[in-house]
């Protein structure tokens, strides 16, 4: 068995050689369905080897993403809570998400970008693989309130989907792993690395003095947590929003009191577009966020030690000018190409 796989690999390489050589000469147009890691990003974590991206798979995933058939009463699609114009975060009209029958969720829908580089999903990190994320959305009674079993049944009875799955995956019958793979092909391709900041890093395109000053401050005061090119170390921390926790956050997953009230450090890419902020949508503007860091934190046993000096809650002290320049810097992380990218747009 092993040696057989080995052989296929070899044939694959040889094919690749030929293809890659001819490709060089012909300067063919860029394959928009190829996943490309931006040069300055860490390695992707998504298991592409189990689910290679194809045009058919990606387009099928997109169709599913925009199709309310995934919800119980065909009223809610993924796109209801994840809109491209907001870097796939929810509209500010829905500070916490709104599902079928207008049921209100408890958390703010995060933007969807650079998911292929993340290891854990959701504010509490409870989901450990991108493929499994839609199961939660589909089965949550405050989101789509449907069962995975029934979604698969509806898709099999549909007049277009069976053929689309056959084309994408060569299967005669639709099963949940293929549906989840299709959706992941769409969501894993959502790479946002075309902001002015990225052009500064990759091509040296200048930023303004104020933005550069903001970057310096950010590196000093924020990058302990919002670190690296994804602007998150993906740890779970309490940044002083509450002193008692109706939503245990990470504590729900680790079942450890020391994690009560901790939430994933979010990426700040496209933050200009993703208001309101924090897991509970506490703040409407970036100004409010910085005022919170500066003097609005409340103490609790799990408040991050970075924000404390002994017993004293110190937060991050910032002058008005510093706040303005940090915000100017955060706005350089806005990726206009990403929110305008035609391949993510609904074509139905």
């Amino acid at each position: 068995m092993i040696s057989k796989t080995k052989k296929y690999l070899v044939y694959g390489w040889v094919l690749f050689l030929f293809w890659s050589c001819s490709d060089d000469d012909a300067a063919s147009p860029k394959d928009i369905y190829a996943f490309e890691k931006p040069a300055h990003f860490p390695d992707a974590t998504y298991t592409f080897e189990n689910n290679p991206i194809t045009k058919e798979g990606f387009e099928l995933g997109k169709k599913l993403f925009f199709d309310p058939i995934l919800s119980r009463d065909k009223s809610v699609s993924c796109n209801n809570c994840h809109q491209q114009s907001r870097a796939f975060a929810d509209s500010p009209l829905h500070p916490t998400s709104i599902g079928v029958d207008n049921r209100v969720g408890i958390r703010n829908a995060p933007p969807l970008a650079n998911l292929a580089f993340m290891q854990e999903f959701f504010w509490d990190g409870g989901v450990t693989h991108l493929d499994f994320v839609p199961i939660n959305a589909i089965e949550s009674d405050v989101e789509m309130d449907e069962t995975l079993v029934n979604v698969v049944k509806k898709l099999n009875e549909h007049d277009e989907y069976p053929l689309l799955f056959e084309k994408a995956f060569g299967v005669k019958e639709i099963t949940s792993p293929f549906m989840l793979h299709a959706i992941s092909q769409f969501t894993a391709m959502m790479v946002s690395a075309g902001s002015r900041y990225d052009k500064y890093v990759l091509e040296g395109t200048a930023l303004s003095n104020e933005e550069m000053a903001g970057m310096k401050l950010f590196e000093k005061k924020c990058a302990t947590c919002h670190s690296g090119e994804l602007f998150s170390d993906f740890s779970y921390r309490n940044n002083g929003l509450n002193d008692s926790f109706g939503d245990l956050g990470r504590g729900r997953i680790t079942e450890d009191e020391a994690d009560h009230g901790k939430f994933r450090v979010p990426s700040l890419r496209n933050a200009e577009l993703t208001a309101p902020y924090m897991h509970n949508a506490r703040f409407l503007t970036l100004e409010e966020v910085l005022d919170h860091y500066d003097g609005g934190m409340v103490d609790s046993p799990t408040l991050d030690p970075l924000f404390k000096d002994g017993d004293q809650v110190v937060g991050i002290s910032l002058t008005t000018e510093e706040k303005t320049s940090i915000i100017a810097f955060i706005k350089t992380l806005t990726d206009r190409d990403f929110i305008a990218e035609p391949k993510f747009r609904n074509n139905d």
Partner: protein
Amino acid sequence: MKNINLLAMLSLLAILWSCGDDDDAKPAEFGTFQVYFDNKVGADDITRRDNGSTEYDFETSTGEKFNLSLLGYYVSKITLEGPNGEYFQDEMKASASEAKGYYHVLEGESASQNIKLEQVPAGTYNKITFAIGVEEDGVLEGAAGGVLDPADGAWFWNWNAGYIGFALEGTAENSGQEYVDWGGGRETLENTFAIHIGGWKDVADNENFINNIKTITLDFGTTVKVGPDLSPLAHLVTDAMKVLDGAAIDFSNTFSVHAPKAGKPFAEQLPQVFSVHHVHQSTSGHD
């Protein structure tokens, strides 16, 4: 271009090496090995009762009366070993189309209780090892089919994504469970209980996570032979009473176990739950 040349050289090398490999392989002999999981409570066979049924078939050592409506578990990573270095490792592959090497054993579904291992190298065997649950390497493959398909009976936890490794459900006279109407026709009946043992995360820098997956090794106490005409069977017993008694269950306060920490005292019993009833040597044609 330099890179590509390098790739080409590597590829050629790989081709040569892989072909050589093929030629060397000497014709080996194989057989099948069957593993039968016989579920019991103490010495008794199990009759699955409807949820809420007050026919209590069993009693724990502390006098808790109960019955079972569901008993099952995932068996994975099976290996067989023999005294002369014989070794068989069941192939594992979780992909969208199948879940090779993962078995979902369910009481009352006899096909699921009979696991047939194919392509076992001929030889003598005296030991079996398997895991109860789906370990990290399986979960992190992403969406999988077969017995791991959540839309086709797989036991999957959404909120803390992963698979339930071992589950017991039923009704107990003293269960503290009250009636709950979840709406949409879903309900939990009075006096029922559900013990779901899950939790697979074993993150080096986070000791909070509980990995409830147990690896079980059982000695046959004798040897059996595998060959083209020799297909032995190991009859194993899964004693559900040991899960409950070992954890000294008090159904009045323990009736709804759905998280790794609460499942841990039960998971700790799993190494005692499985035993070898007997093995028998039989010739081909045995099914």
